């Protein structure tokens, strides 16, 4: 029996959180999120003139007493918040100790669980989409309700990684396919030669509140292989020859910092919440402290 994605204790603590969204829910389905739609709830929104056929139960009799005109009381409709998790399942995520993909799945599971507990609709989209995961992805397309959490975890666990991904294309398609914008969580290493800017921009343009989580392996942050190396890209098969030694370690780490800093600045400029974590980061630390401080949830 495989180990659970998230420990029960962590799940209990996650239940206390709710995904924060600055935008109002635009979903048509009812939920627990405030929306611009008027409907049934306890939150008073406005008055309007009575028109024949309106439900008498919503007439404001107090106002009628003062003004002798019939007004109807309008309440805010609480809708669900669609949460779309874009999970990088390319070959590059299979590296690291622990694997970046395993760490990313745990984060996806945690975010999804928080969303499900908040009666939000969760959809998980992997890129690339592996053929053997088709059925699982179908089940993960729209998950709702806390009772679906178990299946959600099971399906997340069943996901595989492999192949070459096109981050920009995947995000752009995900943005277009979404019927309602909501919260988008992009979990990736962002090591795409084509960059990440068009994809993230597409999500923002579609109206998503985007959270970008960059997962890097410890070996990527601080390589331990020295000497004359012939490096082969696991995704593209590209070959890069490099001579590396301890004395260049600092320069390499500075370069990684620069790379992450550019992604951070790009994200901040577009209202995207960004944070980076190594795959060996403590999950509790990340979920309970860092994501909370980043106001992904609260």
């Amino acid at each position, binding site marked *: 029996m495989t180990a659970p994605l998230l420990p029960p204790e962590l799940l209990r603590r996650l239940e206390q959180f709710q995904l924060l969204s600055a935008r109002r829910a635009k979903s048509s389905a009812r939920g627990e999120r405030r929306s611009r739609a008027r409907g049934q709830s306890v939150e008073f929104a406005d008055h309007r003139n009575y028109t024949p056929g309106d439900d008498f139960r919503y007439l404001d009799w107090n106002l009628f007493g003062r003004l002798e005109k019939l007004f109807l009381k309008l309440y805010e409709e609480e809708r669900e918040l669609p949460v779309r998790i874009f999970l990088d399942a390319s070959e590059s995520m299979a590296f690291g100790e622990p694997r970046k993909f395993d760490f990313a799945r745990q984060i996806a599971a945690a975010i999804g669980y928080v969303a499900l507990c908040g009666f939000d609709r969760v959809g998980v989209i992997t890129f690339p989409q592996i053929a053997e995961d088709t059925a699982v992805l179908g089940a993960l397309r729209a998950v709702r309700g806390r009772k679906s959490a178990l299946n959600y975890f099971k399906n997340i666990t069943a996901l595989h990684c492999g192949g070459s991904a096109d981050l920009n294309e995947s995000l752009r398609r995900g943005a277009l396919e979404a019927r309602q914008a909501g919260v988008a969580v992009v979990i990736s290493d962002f090591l795409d030669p084509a960059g990440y800017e068009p994809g993230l921009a597409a999500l923002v343009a579609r109206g998503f509140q985007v959270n970008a989580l960059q997962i890097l392996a410890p070996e990527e942050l601080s390589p331990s292989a020295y000497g004359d190396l*012939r490096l082969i890209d696991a995704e593209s098969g590209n070959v890069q020859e490099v001579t590396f030694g301890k004395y260049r370690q600092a320069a390499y780490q500075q370069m990684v910092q620069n790379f992450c800093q550019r992604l951070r600045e790009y994200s901040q400029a577009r209202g995207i919440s960004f944070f980076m974590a190594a795959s060996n980061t403590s999950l509790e630390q990340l979920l309970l402290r860092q994501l909370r401080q980043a106001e992904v949830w609260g």
Partner: protein
Amino acid sequence: MNFLSPWAFAFAATIPLVVVFYLLKRRRVVKLVSSTLLWQKFLAESQASAPFQKLRRNWLLLLQILMLILAVLALSRPYFAAKSPNSDLRVLILDASASMRSTDEKPSRFEKARKEALTWVDSLRDGDQMVVLQVSGNTEVKQSATGEKSALRRAILSCQAADAPTRPAPAFKMAESLIRDRSKESNPEIHFFSDGAFADLAGFDNSSLPVIYHKVGVSSENLGITALDVKANPENASQRAIYASVSSFSTNTLQTDLELRLDGTLLETRPVTMKPGEISRQIFLATQTNDGIFSVHSTLEDELAADNDSSIVSLLPHPEKVLLVTRGNRFLERAIRSVPNVQLAIADSLNDEAPEFDFVVLDDVIPTVWPKGNILAFRVANTNWFEKITEIESPAIVDWRATHPLMHYVGFDTVQVAKSLQVKTPSWGVSLVESPQATLMAAGELGHQRIVWVGFDTLESTWPYRVSYPIFLANVADWLNPASERNNQLLVHAGDPFRFRSPPGVTNGTITLPDGKKRELTVDPKAGEVVFGDTLKQGVYHLSIGSNEIPFCVNLLDSSESNIKPHEELQFGKFVKVEATTLHRTNFELWRHIAAAGLGVLMLEWWYYHKRTA
């Protein structure tokens, strides 16, 4: 700057090879990574930030090319030509005498001379030749003419300083013969590495030798024993008197203790204070019951240790047996009897070899059988002594050899001779007294026999009335005494051969050196004499031959050698002087420095390679 081996630049053709090797793919470790994106960015950033990015990429290549250039440069042997002209033949004469062991130069003068000589070997060009001679008590050819540097270095390194005085004349004669046939264009040179501590070189007046004198040494802080002798005490025959002459060659007043030992037992310690240049003659008196060895040691630790110790074998005197063959000569008889410790026998003829006598005096009597021992002959001569004997009336005595031991305190100022035989000085001896025409007295050693020949009858002269007559006979008694001759044989100057008359029938012997090593000797029975030449170390040697155990002492006892003040010039004969040169070597070669730089570059390359891949 010139190059001794310019052909080595051909090796520069290997530089492109390094580039080719560098261009060949290096074996790299293949590693699968998640993405090469970060590495591409890293390389792009690091190269962009490097000030000489193109050079940096090929840093190892540049180091390797630099190292190769240095190696080629070292092989081409660049040098700076110095003042001395080139020479096709150099004769190196290395002074290995006792004075070169002085420690005013560290570690010694000899080592400094050797080091300097080695630099001259290094400066040898292709085609040049060099000869290495070592000179101390004798001259030794360490290496004949060759251009092979390794052989020359070996030869120089094999030279050893001895306790012997310098006798450079044979070495210069040998060097002269070596360069005689060389043309002027070849510009042969004789390089003499020495401190000049030896007597002047006679016999080189007319030979303009191309000598370059490399002076070694700086100071002269030395006090040495320059003479040692042992005699019976004239005032008390039961005692032995040891005469030691101590000389100071220092510019300061020195104090030392002279220790006298008999067979290793300390008998007396005498403090001596010596002013600069002073010679102190010390006489020790000691009682001796058996034959033994007296040693004198100066305790002062000066710059030359070789002359701080001297030893001498002291044999107890025995009565000297003398046979006087005469038809009657009271003067002669009384004079011989006046010599101490002499037992005189008188005969009017001699019919055998008189083996029981230490020497025989023939007073104008031709013996039937010539004696085998030493002879003092008056107006009589064996046929093989002289080529031609003539007679002269009233010869005038014009000169006598006062330095000969026989002539000590003997003068002929007022001696007249009525008639005398006269001879041409024989090859086996020296003339003692001369008239304008010929020799009247001669002395020497023929075979193993010492002969003193006087050409006139003393009764036909005024000599017996002079004080010099008994003194002469006392000197003769001493000189012809086999015991004193033996004493002299047992005191050997370092570098001189030790000679000893071997007992009949003995064919081999053993000599034990002062350091305990033993040398086997083969004795030629026909020669009847043991000759041992390896006396370069001072100390007490022991000869074992037959049933005899004979000790003999080798000492420096040379004031020229003890005077270690380095001479600024060498005197060749009366007129020729050679000043010390300041030249150090003809060429200052750079290849060692370049090779060292190349090694440094190699290490830098090694460090850099491992730094970037570690």
